């Protein structure tokens, strides 16, 4: 019975985000009838929907890590800085490499960028799990210092690079689909498999629901927290490679700016509570699509893109209000059988 309730809850949680996404897509289709068209050109798929998929790839990557971190009652504000650092490192390496077009060089560049991202993730994990500093402030340290480090790497310049293999990551195509989409999809599949087909997902949720109890039950909460921050770092690193490859430059100031806020927003839109515990990877995916579709919609409607935050705010407030306990209990009057939620919001 508990399971049934949980299922109903998940369905309910995803209902409004999905409705918002569909409403956005319908609005776009009414405005531009060719919006949903996907055409094939040189064996590659093109179209607004493909654009949404591709543009949301870095966000999805960052969000996957963020979802796991939030599920353990944490938060990672430093992902934007990690995005900038990873891009800066890869681009600086490629800019000074003798042969930036060789696949080997690009792999090494990506490798060291991801290794540094992992180190940064592990550092966050150390602060949170070993020193026991609150996640917001622990990751705020790297968020503040990180952009400085990225600028240190690029010496404050925007490092332009020319490297065909590196360009593939952000704007190339594999099997007719954008490479970025495939990478994000693969990471999503791996995370979904690991968290949902093994016990890891449950352990993460148990740490988020009650760290004390799960520790007493023998869950290695410290290493689990460490793992999720490390994963968030690596995923942000991949996103950083994507973003810098998309513009073929490292912009320490603007790469991944506010991506942490977008990611947190998307996670919340997707129905994962910031209080930790249950997380929904599919909800996270929907959240990323909503944010990206919204951005595209604003552009299509001819509104200055700078105004996008206003619409984001409206969507967040709407979705949050619809998920608020007081509104949900009003909406749930029709189904009196629903039990009163036991957990009081923190």
């Amino acid at each position: 019975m508990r399971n049934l309730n949980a299922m109903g809850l998940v369905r309910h949680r995803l209902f409004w985000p999905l409705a918002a996404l569909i409403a956005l897509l319908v609005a776009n289709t009414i405005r531009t009838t060719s919006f949903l068209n996907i055409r094939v050109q040189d064996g590659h798929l093109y179209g607004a929907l493909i654009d949404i998929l591709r543009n949301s790839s870095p966000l999805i990557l960052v969000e996957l890590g963020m979802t796991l971190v939030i599920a353990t009652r944490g938060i990672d504000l430093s992902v934007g800085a990690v995005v900038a650092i990873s891009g800066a490192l890869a681009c600086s390496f490629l800019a000074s490499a003798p042969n930036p077009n060789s696949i080997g060089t690009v792999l090494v560049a990506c490798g060291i960028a991801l290794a540094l991202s992992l180190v940064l993730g592990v550092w966050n994990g150390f602060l949170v799990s070993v020193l026991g500093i609150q996640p917001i402030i622990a990751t705020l340290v790297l968020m503040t210092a990180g952009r400085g480090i990225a600028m240190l790497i690029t010496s404050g310049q925007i490092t332009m690079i020319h490297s065909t293999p590196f360009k593939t990551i952000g704007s190339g195509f594999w099997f007719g689909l954008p490479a970025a989409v495939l990478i994000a999809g693969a990471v999503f599949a791996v995370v979904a498999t690991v968290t949902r087909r093994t016990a890891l997902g449950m352990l993460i949720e148990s740490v988020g629901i009650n760290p004390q109890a799960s520790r007493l039950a023998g869950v290695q909460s410290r290493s689990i927290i460490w793992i999720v921050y490390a994963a968030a770092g690596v995923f942000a690193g991949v996103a950083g490679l994507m973003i810098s490859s998309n513009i073929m430059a490292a912009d320490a100031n603007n790469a991944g700016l506010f991506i942490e806020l977008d990611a947190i927003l998307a996670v919340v839109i997707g129905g994962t509570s910031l209080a930790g515990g249950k997380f929904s990877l599919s909800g996270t995916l929907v959240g990323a699509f909503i944010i990206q579709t919204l951005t595209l919609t604003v552009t299509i409607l001819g509104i200055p893109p700078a105004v996008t935050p206003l619409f984001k705010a409206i969507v967040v407030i709407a979705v949050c209000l619809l998920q608020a306990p007081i509104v949900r209990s009003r909406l749930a009057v029709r189904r009196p059988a629903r039990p009163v939620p036991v957990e009081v919001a923190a």
Partner: protein
Amino acid sequence: MAIDQLAGRTPVKAAVTSLRRRVRLDRRHLPVVGTLVVLALIFAIGGNRYENFLSGRVFSNLFINNSHLIVLAVGMTFVILTGGIDLSVGAVLALSSILSASLLQNNWPAFVVIPLAILVGTLLGLLVGVMIHVFEIQPFIATLAAMFLARGLCYVISLNSIPIDNPTIVWLSSTRYPIGDSWVVTPSGIIALGVVAVGFYVLHYTRFGRTVYAIGGGEQSAILMGLPVARTKVLVYVISGTCAGIGGILFSVFSRSGYSLTGVGMELDAIAAVVIGGTLLTGGSGFVLGSLLGVLVLGTIQTIITFEGTLSSWWTKIVIGALLLVFVVLQRAIAARRR
């Protein structure tokens, strides 16, 4: 380089400990004293390295350049003391700033514009407070939404920078009251210090302030004690929003213009200042004066990096990050010892 020098302060700490034994310092004040020591240390480093660093001019400039941040930090202190967080202050500051610039451009009188711009901050704070209290949205998300809302509204008002030539603002911005030989005070500095004084009074000498500390110490206990928790929780965000509104006016005065991109990341500076000032992010412990010192620490680091000349601007971020780390770890150590 600056980090090394900051790290090597163990003897100073020992001195502080012995001093505390002698003067019987309250343990609650320890973090603030730590901030004061760091500030003194940074000044010592600056004075040692550069001529003219230890001058009234440098110190006066700290208040001129950071008056808006001081006001933001005061509001943020209230919020953090209750265990919340306000991410919207930077964007609200920008909104208040560009709104005032835009209205002044349309020849609205300053005595209408200034209260109106502050009121916008108050209203946004009220919105956040209601979202947090009535709809039980986490402070992080509610203020994030408010941040996007305010930033979006900025762009709706204007995408370009609007210069301000209103005589009142010009007067506020160019007036200097000299004190002694090299010290000056500006109206903005006086307003900022006034806000600090009001914040200090409200926190320590009113029931409201006591409730703020009580909520941070334990919300459940505060409710059981019959304190007006709901009202107080909404009010702290109203205060923070109002402070952001005032900060916006001060920033307009400082830059004599309004621009929708001002204050990006300023909420982080404010949070960093509050944390460096010794306020615990879990709430319940901290002082407005500490936050003032925190802002001065940030400002002095900025000044040193400007004085250094060869150090690039990004070192500011790295040093602030490192300092934040040191303080957080220190807080953690103090909290652990207390247990």
